[in-house]
């Protein structure tokens, strides 16, 4: 088995290089987000819509294993609402005193359960390729949120001369244009709790914003802290500059 690995890796490398070349010219359009820039913030209503899409669509195949229900308080949910969301999930726990695993309803400290028991099951149910965990997706791809939006809205009819492999879909934003994920977001696939019209563009944007939050939940506190830190440093450095000027005044 060990001997096999380098060969397998080399094969995958060749396949990947082919994909990379095929993907040349894929342009991911730049979009504007509430979390852009040094004053960027998360739009709570948008994140809640994104959560709804994750729960009703993405979670059928994709795990979100770094997010606990308690983290949803960041999205503006009250303690009661978080509890209620957690209780909608069945969590495998155990072993109990008899050594048996058992199911119980979720509590806020539980993490989002994965749709498949393990990677092999996930791959078997999805034509050989396990759907990746989404927690870090917005940081694990270049231009993360822009890319997620472009991917979710990038499904098109393949050009006449393009032969698709069995079970794959054509996507203009994906490396190599052939993606195993079937178009996940169709008009009206969700009915937003806040009444926003669920257009494809709206859903893609909300999903991308939500995944930016799952990837970097501390982003707001980071940027807010950063502004205070920089302001402090500017004052400190100005004082040091004045001190330097004063000390050196007679030195030349």
């Amino acid at each position, binding site marked *: 088995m060990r001997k096999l690995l380098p060969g397998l890796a080399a094969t995958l490398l060749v396949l990947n290089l082919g994909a990379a070349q095929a993907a040349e010219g894929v342009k991911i359009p730049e979009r504007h987000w509430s979390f852009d820039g040094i004053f960027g913030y998360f739009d709570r209503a948008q994140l809640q819509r994104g959560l709804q899409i994750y729960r009703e669509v993405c979670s059928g195949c994709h795990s979100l294993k*770094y997010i606990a229900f308690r983290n949803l308080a960041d999205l503006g949910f009250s303690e009661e609402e978080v509890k209620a969301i957690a209780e909608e999930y069945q969590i495998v726990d155990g072993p109990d005193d008899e050594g048996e695993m058992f199911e119980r309803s979720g509590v806020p400290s539980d993490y989002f359960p994965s749709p498949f028991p393990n990677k092999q099951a996930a791959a078997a149910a999805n034509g050989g390729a396990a759907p990746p965990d989404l927690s870090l997706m917005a940081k694990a791809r270049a231009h993360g949120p822009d890319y997620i939006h472009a991917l979710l809205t990038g499904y098109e009819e393949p050009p006449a001369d393009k032969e698709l492999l069995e079970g794959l879909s054509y996507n203009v934003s994906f490396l190599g244009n052939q993606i195993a994920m079937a178009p996940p977001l169709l008009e009206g696939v969700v009915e937003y709790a806040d009444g926003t019209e669920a257009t494809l563009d709206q859903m893609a944007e909300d999903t991308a914003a939500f995944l930016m939050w799952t990837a970097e939940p501390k982003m707001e506190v*980071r940027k807010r802290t950063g502004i205070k830190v920089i302001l402090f440093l500017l004052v400190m450095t100005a004082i040091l*500059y004045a*001190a330097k000027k004063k000390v050196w005044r007679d*030195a030349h």
Partner: protein
Amino acid sequence: MSDKGMMNNPVVKWIEYRLPIFSFMDHSIGSGYPTPKNLTYLWNYGSLAGIALVIMIITGIMLAMQYTPHVDYAFDSVERIMRDVNYGWMLRYIHANGGSFFFIVVYIHVFRGLYFGSYKAPRELLWILGVVLLMLMMATAFMGYVLPWGQMSFWGATVITNFFTAIPWIGEAVTTWLWGGPTVDNPTLNRFYSLHYLLPFVIFAVVFLHLWALHRFGSNNPLGIETKGPQDQLPFHPYYTVKDAFGIGVYLIAFCAAVFFFPNALGEVDNYIPADPLNTPPHIVPEWYFLPFYAILRAVDFDFLWIVPAKLGGVILMFAAVLILLVVPWLDRSPVKSARFRPWYKGAFWIFVFFTLVLGWVGANPADADFHGVPFVIIGQISTLYYFIFFLVIMPLLSLFEPPKPLPASISEPVLKGGGTMAGAHAKPMEKA
């Protein structure tokens, strides 16, 4: 001076008599350390490197309290630091960006030394200790990048450690020994973690040797002529303590802007994907500070004289690119230190800087790509050629043939030309104003 007052304090006197640490401090970074009066802001980078090292050690020790060095848990433990540890995101981003900023500072420090001839007698050992520090930093940074166990951690480690297989006859055995097994795996991660924790303290020790050697003859200066007496000098404190403090303030503004607003700009997105030995990323690149050396490695795409295979040749050249710095004091025999008085060397130096930057750019691009029809391999080869010609041909030849400009008689002479007074040498600075 205010120090005099402190030295009369009975507690200070009691300690000083038994352990003369106060006079040691005074002679190291205090008013008892005479420093050339004409140092520019390029001389701030030594103290900046010191601050960068301290920041890395402090944040690193705290991260180590939360990190788990195991292939199954390393990635998760880093995410736990980012999400659940109080200010863990700040610690990790300071540490990750701190490495990059450490290299920016040290590279400027090295280029400053090259430009002003700071490696020349009697400072050869000071320079060599600096090169040793650079190599220790590179080893530490490389192993640190492996610890989060993302895709680029794993594949970077695989590519770099694979260099050792190029050693004739014993390469495979040596590499297996380094890995602690047949591939990069848990034993590799464990030993990298152990060494990543150890090496910074080795660096700290060598920094002391570096400073010891520095204090023997004091700093070089932009004119490259030695100080001839008190009229050329200023006490380190308060002049350079306050100047270094101001420099640290500017540095921290740039550093914190990166940490708080662009913490992932210098990283690779692939490292947010957990390591997968079965899935090779399409484009494996090292961290930006290794890119010039990576380009030199890949520039050798041919066997040399049928004896040295391309892979071995590339590895040799890559290590040579760093090691060659050790002998620079003997490659450059010109008696003139500063490039200000060496017009030809000045030109050659800036071309060297240019080609080093080009090498970094080549290293960042895929090996088989091209720039407007010119393959990156060719650009890399030309740049690599100049890199070595600069050291091996230009430096020795200029030592022989370059006519230097006339040197000033002393540091205070050109300084005073502007019509200033001799105040610096005799002033009583920092008296209660």
